[in-house]
Every structure is written in structure tokens, then in C-alpha cells.
């Protein structure tokens, strides 16, 4: 019992010390920390943007169009929402490696590779959730679209615009997946200091090195970003609901 107590006390002291160091790093706005945070945000925003550009139109088309095999696509994208990041990392690695079909691009171990891997992970989430959100709205609008003879692409734009506040939640889900992801980016990015080190890979590395302060500081930043983004989206949606646009 005594040994166990001493061990616990030691861990608690480490824990408190790490927190204190973490807050100091944040307070000083440590440049190394800032660089990692900035790269994380850059990679994630770019990946989510690409995923939205690809995923929103596909989701809208799946919500509106009726064609043979549509159900199969819906099931496929729903399944791909749970893609294991390490598998995506491996596939993107194979594509981008020198021997791979996209090896000439020389993107491996660059932020570009990390953006591609995250976009691959996030796109099915955007497609599947967009399809669900827009299918509900389309059920409401369908007779009006048919009556007014609205072409399907115009109907898709209408649905995307009218559901824009609901789609914020979809984008948020993609953002959450991307910013917290570690398996794929560590494989294709390599966690190279000043080049491809992002918050999640740095946390993994620093934890394994025993530098809990930096890991914890990064973890706190990650939590704060998630909190801020969620709060902003909730506020926008609440205001849209008050205005009856959501």
C-alpha cells in the first residue's frame, strides 16, 4: 500500500508540474508550440476544404438523384466514414512513395501528403452526412422542385444553400476527425520537426519521450480549438434557428 501511495503521489506531482509547465508554454506563446499549432490548423483547414469541395456536391447528388446503384453508394460512403486512419495513411504512403503512381509529385513527408491523407479520411464523412441532411430537406422540397421543374443541379445548389446551417455541423464533424487524427499523418508526414510535426504527432512523440509538459500544452490547445470551433458553430446555428433559416 505504502509503495503504491508513494507512486501515486509521484504521478500526481508530475501531473501538476506538467500542467504548470504547459500553462507557462501557452502563456509565453512558445514559438515551437505556435509553429506546431499553426501547421496543424493549416493542414486541417486545407483538408476539410478539399473534402467539402468534393463531398458536398456528391452528397447533394446522392440526396436528389435516383439511379441504379444509388443505395450501394450510400452504404459505401457510410461505411467509409469509419475508415481506419492507419490504413488510409498506408494507402496514401504507397501512392506517394517513389515507387507509387504519384511518386513524381515528391509529396511524401510534406504537409501536402498530410492534407491528402486527411482529405481522404474526411471526404466520406462529408458525403455521407451531407446526403443524410439534404435527403430530409429534399423530402420537403421535392414536390415543389418537380412542380417548378427545377433542374437537378439547381435543386442541389438550393438544398446546399438552404441547409447551410445544418451543414456546418457536418463540416464540424469532418474538422473534428481531421484535427484529432494521428495515424495517417504520422505515416505520410513522418513527424519531422519544423516540417510535418502537427499537434497530434507531437503529443505522441513528446509523451513517448516523457516530456509531458509540451504534450499537455498541445493537448490543451487542441481542446481549446475544438471548444472554440464547436461554440462558434453552435452560436451560428442558434442564431439561424431564431431566424428560421435552419
Amino acid at each position: 500500500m505504502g509503495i503504491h501511495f508513494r507512486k501515486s503521489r509521484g504521478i500526481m506531482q508530475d501531473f501538476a508540474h506538467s500542467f504548470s509547465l504547459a500553462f507557462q508554454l501557452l502563456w509565453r506563446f512558445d514559438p515551437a508550440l505556435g509553429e506546431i499549432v499553426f501547421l496543424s490548423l493549416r493542414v486541417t483547414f486545407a483538408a476539410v476544404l478539399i473534402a467539402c469541395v468534393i463531398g458536398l456536391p456528391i452528397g447533394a447528388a446522392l440526396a436528389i438523384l435516383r439511379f441504379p446503384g444509388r443505395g450501394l453508394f450510400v452504404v459505401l460512403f457510410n461505411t467509409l466514414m469509419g475508415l481506419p486512419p492507419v490504413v488510409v495513411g498506408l494507402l496514401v504512403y504507397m501512392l506517394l512513395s517513389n515507387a507509387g503512381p504519384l511518386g513524381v509529385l515528391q509529396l511524401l513527408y510534406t504537409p501536402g501528403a498530410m492534407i491528402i491523407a486527411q482529405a481522404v479520411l474526411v471526404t466520406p464523412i462529408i458525403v455521407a452526412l451531407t446526403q443524410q441532411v439534404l435527403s430530409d430537406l429534399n423530402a420537403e422540397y421535392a414536390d415543389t422542385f418537380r412542380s417548378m421543374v427545377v433542374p437537378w443541379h439547381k435543386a442541389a445548389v438550393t438544398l446546399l444553400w438552404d441547409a447551410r446551417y445544418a451543414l456546418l455541423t457536418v463540416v464540424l464533424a469532418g474538422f473534428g476527425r481531421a484535427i484529432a487524427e494521428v495515424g495517417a499523418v504520422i505515416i505520410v508526414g513522418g513527424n519531422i520537426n519544423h516540417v510535418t510535426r502537427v499537434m497530434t504527432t507531437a503529443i505522441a512523440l513528446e509523451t513517448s519521450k516523457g516530456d509531458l509538459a509540451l504534450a499537455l500544452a498541445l493537448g490543451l490547445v487542441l481542446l481549446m480549438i475544438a471548444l472554440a470551433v464547436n461554440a462558434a458553430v453552435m452560436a451560428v446555428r442558434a442564431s439561424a434557428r431564431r431566424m428560421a433559416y435552419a
Partner: protein
Amino acid sequence: MPDPRVLPFPTSPGEARPAARLPLTVRGLGFVADGTRILDGIDLDLTDNRLTVIMGPNGAGKSVLLKLLHGLLPPSAGRILWGGRELDRHTRQRQAMVFQKPVLFRRSVRANLQFAVNLKKSPEATDLLSILMDDLHLNDLADRPARLLSGGEQQRLALARALLLTPDILFLDEPCANLDPASVLLIEETLHKARAGGTKVLLVTHDLHQARRLAEDVVFLHRGRLTEHSDADSYFDAPASPEARAYLAGQILL
């Protein structure tokens, strides 16, 4: 000086447009949903642009008939021809419909109307937009979200949006159900103007007073069958079918 009693549709204002005079011909029309026969053996000829009212008790199949005539539902049996042509998206482009429960886009009143203007792409549509906003008292509501409007305001907006499509035929499914008298009056005045502008109006209503005010001819449905189609005067003064007589007398029809 344009006649304020006429909705100045782009083509030949004041005249019944040729397309509206095309006969709408229904032969042996039937509709079955989930094994239930909703409509059966409907024969109907609508040959001019008079304002036609469709009446009948609940469950008679009035709304389904309207959707079939507009091409929103495929018939289970029979044919519908408009000017000798089968219904398709091209014929539907020259028609419009106002639903019993208006479906409005999650946008402002003006944006809902602008959607129809953009769809029509006619240069006169902008003029028509301001006329309809005046006629249906929508100017003060222009920047409000459509879904926050009252029932009457929503229905006026739905009617304005439908008329912006300058339809040759306008279908209305109980557009005045549960509306206050002021909204009913605005809608009826606008329907008269549309009719004078050359639009064929087909209206489903349960309101006998409204039917008397508006109808030029009446189609009566009972249990999915057409029991009478006659001029409004004959229908209200001396209905030919026992079902229509019972309905007008306020008797419960089963």
C-alpha cells in the same frame, strides 16, 4: 395604361393565351396507392380558361386529381392530354401549383420570389414581381424569413411565387383553408386577375361560399369517381347528381 384588374403576363395581356385554351383531356383516369383505389374511371374535358372549382367530400380524391393533372403523380390507368400532348416536364413548365400546405424555401420572402424569377428568366418577370408584391401585400414582409410568416402570409407568398412562373394553368389545392377573410380576399382578387390575364385556374376547395364566388364551372368528385361536371350556376341551382345535391345540402356523404 394597363388594366389593374388584369395580371399583365408577358404574353398578350388581357387575352386568354392560346396555350390556356388548349383542351385538358382526361380519359379513364385511375389512381391506386398501396392497393387502395383513390380515383377510378375519370373522364373530363376542360376546354377553355374558365375558373374551374373541384369539390367533393374528404377522401374523394380531389388533391390526387390535381397532382395527376399537374403531372406530379403517374396515373395507374387512363390518359391525360393537354392540347393532345402527354404530360411531361415541358408541359409542367407551363403550369404551376399552390399546395395546401405551402412549401417555402428557407430564405426571405424576396429570395423565395426571386427564385421563381431566376427560373423563368423572362425580362418581364421583374415587373410582374413588383405587381404581385403590391397585390398580395408582400412589400412590408420582403426581408422577413418566409418560414416565420403567418399561414395567410405564407399562402400569399406561395401564390405570388407560382404566378411568377406565368403559368397557362394554375392548380390550387385548398389555398384558403384556415385563412382569415382578408387573406382570402387578396387571394381571390389575385386569382381573378390571373384569370383575366389568361391563366386557366383549377381550384380545390371545401368552402361553398368561395366556390360560389369564384367558380365558372364545377367538377364534383365522390369516392374517387367524377359524378358531375357542370356550369357553376347549374351546379349550385340544380345539381344533377344525388351526391352533389346531398353535399350542397350539408348531408354527410359516405
